[in-house]
């Protein structure tokens, strides 16, 4: 059947048209019905051009040669309406052409222009065999789980609950409240005065507790998560408190009789608590809990309790939850100062962290708010603060990023000390003071309070004649200083908590190279993750202050609400089963590594959210009852054909098949303006498993010089594909082609530099093979 094909080329405001010769592209592409170019196709005007042409020229296939589908596929699927969204295909001229093949001074990059033509031809060929398929719309369950009960989690839960959504707030420790409860005083964007953290937190905490839509699960941990249709099936383990929360009246008699003394982690281990304890007086649930690992089960507390609330026979409970969305607000932990031994944190009692200083200055802390040295109980005459401990630090275990809040934290604690103890000298050693926006006023306030600022990063803290000595160069006066001090306070970096890393793994959410939760686009999708229905809030995503955490929490709650009201669109390229042919042998259920197939009401049910379209089930079905929507195999063949069209002698064309992860990684190469050879032509595939030996051999026999296959090792099909490669290499040899022309590689989103290098190395290798073949 003859199709009417339209090609629309976007300049992307010069991003594409500065490097690629658009005129030449228009002249060189194959026979199509319409070729248009425009400055910004994604604009409203762009949409008019596309729609008018489709209607006036009766186009039934549309190529959009612009940016990555990751940025604008949804936009253009909307713009081509009423054309079926899968009869539109995007050619990635920006991320995978103009951004990776640099501009040669003044003139266009000819090789990249040629490549652009090949990519557009590939898209045209692919569209010619494409069929209209309808996206699958899934409605999500009207409930959500918020993991982590700190300020971000509580704010998100409240916002959801007030929108009528049922929320499970899951907290690992025995009480909700998080870091904010123990900070003491907090800084605020517009006020010079520090406010009481707990006083700001309490109303939020109470509201969370009182709201009927919120179910709080403390001492609880996410163990397992499974994505099913419009919902997540979560398994939560609730650890026993050994104290019945309904009976306990919080009288505290049990604490009196407990003989165990354990460092109190809520006070950063600066004081002791009993084995039966309450984290802090305003905690929720407002009852005691037994730290069973440190309890000798003597039974004294049980005998003393007049409410008979204590029982050592309580056991862990497994709670299954079904929710539509998940918000990850699992927070941060602080950099371990022992990793910078030059500052002597473990060697000297009076070298402490800002967090510990926060506890010391807190009225509910170990010294009831009295500032004192831990070694001798005296008020320090001088306090030296050291910034950037573990932040902006490229050395092993350090973090390259700035932890964002430590300048304000240090200034806050310095001001509090100055107000209460004006005679204490404070020296703040900094690399750069970062107090953006309104915080600058607070910085000026600290200066006028007499806090001394020293621009220099101290190299070490030593003890001389009983005094702590901080060695630092005052880089502004260029003088090397040894500052005698009674107390040294380290501003340690913010890093992702263990919970953040664990939950990311369980939910299969990508992490950044620093192990924070990663958003698909930190610029324009700041609360999303790469798993639809999972959102992130607070310091689980990156270092931020309380205000920003609340902002992000409420934003993520809105996103959950959007999903509930609007549903989720799913790509329809999944398995379908012809029930007439199926005899319920369940071979597909057994073989599916994604666990997408199951038996439901005497029929095979394929879960659309779980099925990856890998096609493994097609091969095992004895009755040929399984099919994958959208004739992917034909499309791959057609795409290969298009890429190889018009290959000139001496030219090198390499085809790289990449899965979703590999494709995003390749986009990142462009976003970061790294380069690789123009010979690399990328084809995105739903699953690498769908690339068959016949595709590879067809490509190699018809002009492809090399085949690069990239797959994310976390994909459950990875091992299978890896094993298959050797077999395919054998088949290639049988066809008298050098098997070294096929390569298989692991791909990861953050390691785009590695992918760029591998592309270049493979291109060199193929050049050598070509040389030998001559």
């Amino acid at each position, binding site marked *: 059947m003859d199709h009417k094909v339209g090609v629309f080329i976007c300049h992307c405001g010069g991003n594409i048209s500065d490097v690629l010769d658009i005129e030449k592209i228009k002249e060189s592409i194959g026979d199509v019905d319409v070729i248009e170019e425009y400055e910004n196709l994604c604009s409203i005007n762009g949409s008019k051009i596309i729609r008018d042409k489709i209607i006036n020229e009766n186009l039934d296939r549309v190529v959009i040669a612009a940016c990555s589908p990751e940025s604008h596929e949804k936009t253009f699927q909307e713009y081509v309406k009423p054309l079926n969204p899968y009869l539109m295909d995007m050619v990635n001229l920006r991320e995978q052409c103009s951004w990776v093949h640099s501009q040669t001074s003044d003139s266009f990059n000819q090789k990249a222009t040629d490549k652009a033509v090949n990519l557009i031809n590939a898209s045209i060929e692919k569209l010619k065999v494409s069929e209209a398929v309808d996206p699958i719309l899934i409605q999500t369950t009207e409930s959500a789980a918020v993991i982590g009960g700190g300020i971000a989690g509580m704010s998100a839960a409240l916002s959801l609950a007030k929108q009528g959504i049922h929320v499970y707030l899951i907290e690992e420790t025995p009480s909700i409240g998080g870091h904010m409860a123990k900070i003491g005083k907090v800084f605020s964007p517009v006020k010079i005065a520090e406010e009481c953290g707990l006083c700001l937190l309490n109303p939020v905490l109470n509201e969370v507790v009182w709201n009927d839509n919120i179910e709080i699960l403390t001492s609880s941990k996410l163990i397992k998560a499974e994505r099913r249709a419009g919902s997540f099936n979560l398994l939560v383990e609730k650890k026993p408190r050994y104290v019945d929360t309904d009976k306990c009246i919080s009288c505290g008699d049990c604490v009196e009789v407990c003989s165990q003394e354990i460092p109190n982690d809520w006070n950063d281990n600066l004081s002791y608590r009993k084995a039966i304890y309450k984290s802090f007086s305003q905690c929720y649930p407002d009852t005691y809990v037994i730290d069973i690992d440190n309890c000798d089960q003597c039974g004294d507390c049980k005998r003393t309790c007049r409410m008979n609330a204590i029982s050592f026979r309580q056991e862990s409970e497994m709670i299954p939850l079904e929710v539509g969305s998940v918000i990850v607000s699992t927070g941060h932990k602080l950099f371990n100062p022992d990793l910078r031994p030059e500052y002597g944190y473990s060697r000297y009692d009076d070298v402490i962290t800002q967090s510990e200083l926060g506890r010391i200055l807190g009225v509910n802390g170990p010294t009831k708010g009295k500032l004192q040295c831990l070694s001798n109980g005296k008020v320090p005459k001088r306090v030296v603060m050291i910034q950037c401990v573990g932040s902006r630090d*490229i050395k092993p275990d350090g973090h390259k990023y700035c932890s964002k809040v430590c300048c304000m934290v240090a200034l806050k604690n310095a001001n509090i000390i100055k107000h209460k103890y004006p005679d204490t000298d404070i020296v703040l050693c900094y690399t750069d003071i970062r107090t953006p926006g309104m915080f600058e006023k607070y910085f000026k306030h600290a200066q006028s309070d007499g806090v001394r600022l020293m621009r220099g990063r101290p190299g070490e803290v030593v003890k001389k004649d009983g005094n702590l000595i901080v060695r630092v160069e005052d880089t502004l006066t260029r003088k090397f200083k040894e500052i005698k001090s009674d107390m040294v306070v380290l501003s340690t970096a913010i890093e992702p908590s263990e919970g953040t890393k664990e939950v990311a793994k369980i939910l299969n959410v990508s992490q950044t190279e620093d192990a924070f939760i990663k958003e698909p686009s930190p610029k324009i999708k700041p609360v999303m993750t790469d798993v639809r229905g999972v959102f992130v809030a607070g310091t689980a995503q990156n270092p931020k202050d309380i205000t920003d955490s609340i902002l992000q929490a409420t934003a993520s709650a809105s996103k959950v609400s959007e999903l509930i009201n609007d549903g989720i669109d799913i790509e329809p390229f999944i398995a379908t089963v012809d029930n007439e042919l199926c005899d319920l042998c369940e071979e597909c259920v057994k073989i599916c590594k994604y666990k997408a197939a199951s038996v439901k009401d005497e029929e095979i049910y394929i879960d659309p959210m779980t099925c990856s379209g890998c096609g493994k089930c097609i091969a095992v079905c004895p009755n040929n009852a399984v099919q994958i929507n959208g004739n992917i195999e034909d499309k791959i063949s057609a795409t290969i054909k298009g890429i190889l069209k018009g290959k000139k002698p001496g030219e090198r064309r390499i085809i790289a098949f990449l899965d979703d992860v590999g494709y995003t990684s390749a986009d990142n190469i462009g976003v970061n303006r790294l380069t690789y050879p123009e010979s690399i032509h990328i084809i995105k595939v739903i699953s690498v498993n769908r690339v068959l030996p016949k595709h590879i051999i067809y490509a190699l026999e018809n002009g492809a010089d090399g085949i690069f296959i990239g797959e994310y090792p976390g994909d459950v099909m990875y091992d299978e594909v890896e094993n298959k490669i050797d077999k395919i290499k054998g088949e290639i040899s049988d066809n008298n082609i050098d098997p070294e022309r096929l390569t298989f590689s692991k791909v990861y989103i953050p390691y785009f530099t590695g992918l760029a290098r591998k592309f270049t190395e493979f291109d060199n290798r193929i050049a050598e093979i070509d040389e030998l073949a001559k």
Partner: protein
Amino acid sequence: MVEKFREDSLDLEEYISHNIKSSKPKGLLKCVQCGMCTSVCPAAQHSNYNPRSMVECVLEGDTAVIEDEDIWYCFYCYTCHSICPADNSPCEVNQVLRQIAVDKGIADDHLIPFLGFGDSFLNHGIGGIPENFFPEMKEDIGDDWWDFKTHLDDVRNHLGLDPVFPSEEAIVEVSTILKSCGFEDRINKIRNHHKDED
């Protein structure tokens, strides 16, 4: 008075970056002048040597730093290298600066203490701590070190290893090479020039 802004400030930086022997990614341009290097530098505590300010000069393209006598106080302990949070290596920058000074012929005096290393190559065929350092080292490290040093070949023999020094034949070969390439002449020239000045 307004000081002239150097238009070509990165020339010196580029030269140094391309001559640095560090295998790690280079951090010279990433230096934020935090001064951590100076605060740990043992030479900075006892002299006017300041690694941070040396790097500052390099980044500003101030070639006067090549003639700065203070750069010769660094003794390559590499503490600055191991602590720099930006992955810069002031001591390696220092080495390149010294090489430039040597090449310009303005640093012969500073090479005198190193001549012993050259002698070691000429006389023993391998590099090693110059013998004139031994008495002081014996005092600093102790008799055990000296005992180990003098019996090293016995220990190596016991472990099935060859002697520390290469064969006479090899020594002659190395020293022939060093003589014919002008190495010995260069050493003698520096030494004699120094004596003449005395």
